[in-house]
């Protein structure tokens, strides 16, 4: 009897520990969507021949493999399957939930990834550190489909190292059944009367950026001095917030636990499609425009396959398929022509030109990131 109990306890501990190991990944994909498990660990690949490793971009002498490291909930499995079927390339996918998580794994050097999906400010930082392979645009003719306003951006002039995948923004969602007042910007959201009614992204830099916008400070100058300037405002704001969730902030809004959210545009677009009671507002003070890109990390073993994938993903029909699943702001002008009027009319997916004028992209703030995190944590536990 005792041995049975010991075995049971051990088994239980094993289960719980196994769950713990998974948790970062699973917490971040709360949709219970089958997050594609890495089908072929890079390590088990028959060690690429030295010749293939040394292959410079331009030759096609590399094995039929591609290892993608991308955001969870961003590239539909159907698109990956199609690419594999059309090219015969064996694709493995791993997911992450934040740029920093991606950076940590990439810099630790264990992944052997061929494609990563960094946001604009991380592309800038990676270029500066010489950690990206240059891209051969001749192999990506479909770049002609991209809306020129998303090309040649300040973080990568001439798109020498990255191509845009999808853009998006951060905005306010209001449940109009509960909130009757007009909400125009961040200062209208963070009011005493909405205490316990608010969900925001669990992202320290985003939260601090909203306060920077509200105070009219330059959002990429997160100096100690500027952080001190927004501290009083943030110490009023943070106690009002009920839920911090970057992965699926829509859940708390749909469940009725909160009635105002500051969320990603793609999440907002899904809420607008779900129920007309939700309203989308682009904050009057300004907000973050993010451009998620595809890039090839230094030393990737299959750069040509990576560029074939980039070209594939910029095909209008494929790009539309991605937008159907994850309604962020498409950067693909040709794909937009295939979309339905409803899709194009969703303001959380496609802001107007006036709204776009209010938006700014992030630049890398390096070591200040830790200070930003500390500021938000200290105010959360105040």
């Amino acid at each position, binding site marked *: *009897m*005792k041995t*049975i*109990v*010991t075995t*049971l*306890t051990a088994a*239980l*501990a094993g*289960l*719980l520990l196994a*769950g*713990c190991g*998974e*948790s*970062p990944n*699973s*917490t971040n994909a*709360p949709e*219970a969507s089958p997050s594609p498990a890495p089908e072929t660990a890079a390590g088990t690949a028959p060690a690429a021949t030295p010749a293939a490793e040394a292959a410079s971009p331009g030759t096609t002498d590399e094995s039929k493999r591609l290892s993608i490291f991308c955001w969870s909930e961003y590239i539909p499995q159907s698109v990956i399957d199609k690419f594999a079927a059309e090219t015969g390339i064996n694709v493995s996918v791993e997911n992450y*939930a*934040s740029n*920093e*998580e991606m*950076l*940590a794994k990439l*810099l630790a050097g264990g992944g052997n990834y061929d494609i990563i999906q960094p946001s604009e400010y991380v592309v800038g*930082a990676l270029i500066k*550190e010489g950690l990206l392979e240059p891209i051969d645009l001749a192999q990506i003719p479909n770049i002609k489909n991209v809306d020129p306003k998303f090309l040649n951006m300040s973080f990568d002039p001439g798109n020498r190292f990255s191509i845009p995948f999808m853009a998006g923004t951060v905005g306010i969602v209001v449940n109009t059944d509960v909130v009757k007042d007009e909400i125009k910007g961040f200062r209208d959201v963070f009011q005493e009367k909405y205490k*316990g009614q608010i*969900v925001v992204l*669990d*992202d*320290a*830099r985003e939260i601090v950026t909203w306060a920077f916008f509200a105070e009219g400070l330059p959002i990429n100058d997160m100096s100690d001095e500027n952080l001190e300037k927004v501290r009083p405002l943030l110490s009023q704001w943070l106690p009002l*917030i*009920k*839920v*911090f*969730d970057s992965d699926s902030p829509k*859940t*708390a809004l749909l*469940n*009725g*636990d909160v009635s105002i959210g500051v969320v990603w545009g793609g999440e907002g677009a899904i809420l607008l499609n779900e129920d007309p009671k939700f309203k989308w507002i682009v904050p009057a003070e300004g907000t973050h425009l993010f451009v998620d890109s595809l890039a090839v990390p230094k030393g990737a073993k299959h750069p040509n396959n990576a560029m074939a994938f980039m070209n594939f993903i910029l095909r209008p029909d494929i790009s539309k398929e991605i937008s159907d699943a994850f309604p962020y702001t498409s950067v693909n002008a040709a794909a937009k022509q295939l979309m339905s009027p409803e899709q194009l009319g969703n303001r959380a997916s496609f802001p107007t030109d006036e709204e776009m004028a209010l938006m700014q992209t992030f630049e*890398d703030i*390096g*070591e200040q*990131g*830790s200070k930003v*995190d*500390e500021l938000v*944590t*200290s105010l*959360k*536990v105040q």
Partner: protein
Amino acid sequence: MAGLAAAAGAPGGDLSHRRKPALGAWLVLAPLLAWLILFVVIPTIMLVVVSFATRDSLGRVVYDFSFANYERAFQWTWLRVFLQSIWYAFLTTVICVVVGYPVAYFIGRAPPRWRMILLMLVMIPFWTSFLIRTYAWLAILSRDGLLNGLLVASGIFAEPVQFLYTPFAIVLGLVYNFLPFMILPIYTSVEKLDGAMVEAAYDLGAGPVRAFSQVIIPLTRPGIVAGALLVFVPAIAMFAITTLMGGGSNPTIGEVIYRQFTSGRNQPFGAALGSLLLLVFVIALWLTRRQREDPG
């Protein structure tokens, strides 16, 4: 191990008697030792080494020596998080003892053929991933969820109550997930409990309360101590349940450490917090060890 070593050495002659058994024992132990060194000793050393390092702007570890991470860890912001996590883990442990003890006692005293069935009933829910079970709690506790629906429909409450995203939800999630770790060790103690001792207590004039507090509890104390350790230690560091159930507005030390390794881009500071947490565990172990050695 002594018996095994003797058995292994038995066929050998007198000359090899002292050497061979040791070799056999080491061979048997080797996988375990390799496992411990690879996955416990080396990672712990790495953690402590990194905790004295610094990092560059991309978050890469730079190996120079500094106490700065520890100085920072003792600032009030992080100490508060520590204390709060210890408090949640303490509450969880106490509730687990109070809820788990009667269950374990009942199972341990049940007729033998029932015991396995009852134990399985405790275990079966835990064959599902704890994340899925935690998401189920979200559906039960949310404002438009099952529990509020029942309470409002039956007229007990006029308005839905906010259960989710509160400290109550955090502790509930922890208790729910760690309860079996309390029940199983107490059960083993209760099962070994000699019924004659309890009867003797009654014969000598003790009432039920006295028999319980002065005979049954002391005899099952090893189970309670083991259970408390199995619940308290992982409950401090748990971050998935606390983030989901608490909504992230009451960060626990597990969440804060996780964040240092990801969005904070500050692995050395995360390692320093982790090393301090390790120290808390060592202290907890030491205290329970003293408990066991000193039954008075």
